């Protein structure tokens, strides 16, 4: 383990997003991208699991530069304007749990936050860190996928808005460039009181990485899903947006859907594997189960 290496890293604080973007651009041009540190709940653990720095042959000569963004005001705050919710990238799960705006208009985010790690992780972990690490098991990413959120990134080249469907490009890979900072996520909110769904299946209720998790957001009018957003964790190399299930469920009145066609759509959209946490078979079983449960809540008989 290389926790001892932590003392070799240089850490800086910056006054705002402008200076941060400049440092990011400078370092990215040198081929040594800056590491942003928010809650540290992914990054610090990764350092422990990494081989020691001196073994990493061919790496940058100087230890990587770390910039603390945990209290950078440009990355913080939860604000509601009209039907758009904006959540700063450095917002913690605990802050989301305590936010009146989220409780009223995006309850799925609060419910998801309660299932991340335990209180200690919720107090430090951030949405930005969850998005940047881009684990297929990331609970926050699944919830943001269900909202079809937009990820706002900034660099010296300007602002770029990335739809959730274009964020993850592979296992733990994103389309964020090395000089881009995730600033916030924006959500076009469904009508107040719209149905939502969250179900996380893990080894225990706390401190458990999802074997399968499903987030859902819907608007139902006259028995039809006028809007249906889904995000499923741990069933593919990236967060699964379940496009076939979405397409099927908005195509006809919900009451006309059959269990068999829903299962077939789920099978098309996921490619789970056996790993330390679960098996492919169990994940497939859970995935079908949670999608059907969600649809029953919307009035389908599946």
């Amino acid at each position, binding site marked *: 383990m290389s926790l001892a290496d*932590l*003392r070799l*890293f240089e*850490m800086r604080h910056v006054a705002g997003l402008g200076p941060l973007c400049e440092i990011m651009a400078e370092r990215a041009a040198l081929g040594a991208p800056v590491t942003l540190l928010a809650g540290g709940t992914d990054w*610090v653990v990764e350092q422990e699991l990494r081989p020691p720095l001196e073994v990493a042959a061919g790496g940058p000569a100087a230890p990587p530069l*770390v910039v603390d963004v945990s209290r950078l005001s440009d990355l913080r705050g939860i604000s509601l304007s009209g039907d758009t919710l904006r959540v700063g990238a450095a917002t913690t799960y605990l802050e989301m749990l305590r936010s009146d705006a989220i409780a009223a208009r995006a309850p799925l985010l609060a419910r998801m936050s309660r299932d991340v790690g*335990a*209180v*200690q992780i919720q107090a430090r972990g951030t949405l930005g860190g969850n998005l940047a690490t881009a684990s297929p098991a990331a609970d926050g990413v699944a919830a943001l996928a269900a909202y079809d959120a937009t990820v706002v990134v900034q660099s010296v080249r300007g602002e770029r808005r990335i739809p959730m469907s274009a964020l993850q490009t592979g296992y733990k890979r994103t389309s964020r460039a090395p000089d881009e900072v995730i600033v916030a996520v924006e959500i076009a909110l469904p009508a107040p009181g719209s149905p939502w769904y969250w179900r996380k299946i893990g080894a225990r209720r706390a*401190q458990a990485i999802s074997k399968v998790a499903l987030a859902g957001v819907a608007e139902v009018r006259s028995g039809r899903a006028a809007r249906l957003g889904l995000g499923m964790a741990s069933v593919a190399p990236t967060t699964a947006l379940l496009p076939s299930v979405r397409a099927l469920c908005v195509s006809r009145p919900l009451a006309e859907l059959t269990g068999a066609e829903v299962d077939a759509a789920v099978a098309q959209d996921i490619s789970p594997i056996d790993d330390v946490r679960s098996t492919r078979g169990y994940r497939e079983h859970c995935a079908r189960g949670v999608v059907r449960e969600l649809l029953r809540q919307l009035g389908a008989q599946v």
Partner: protein
Amino acid sequence: MKVSLVVNGSPREVDLPPLSRLLDALRGPLGLTGTKEGCAEGECGACTVLLDGDPVNACLVAIGQCEGRRVTTVEGLACAGHLSPLQRCFVEEGGAQCGICTPGMLLSAEALLARSPDPSELEVREALAGNLCRCTGYQRIVESVRAAAALRRGGGGAAP
């Protein structure tokens, strides 16, 4: 890097590499060894302290992120040599055996009681879910926290 923070109510300064863990600052230069190290990866909660009132894993917080912040450790719970009501209840109700998890348990419970004076059993279990104990089977710990809640509501006095 010099960092000024308030530890258990007193202003302190440490001079450490900025990515040193808060845990190392506490157990090292600050001399507060009540905070324990278990897993070093956020799983066990033995290193739990309060940062501006909220429980965090001191093994995952960089000291360079603590400028100006308030940290409470287990040493900050007792007042003038007297155990806090919460600590007394852990002693009296059998909430501690080997004691390794106890400082972390106490701080998670302290944060809960500060916000929620009359927590249900489920709320206590949820608040302590990030703290692992190898000895007690948890029931006694949950009972200790609920007894402390009752004591505090009855005027037993809050910890500083």
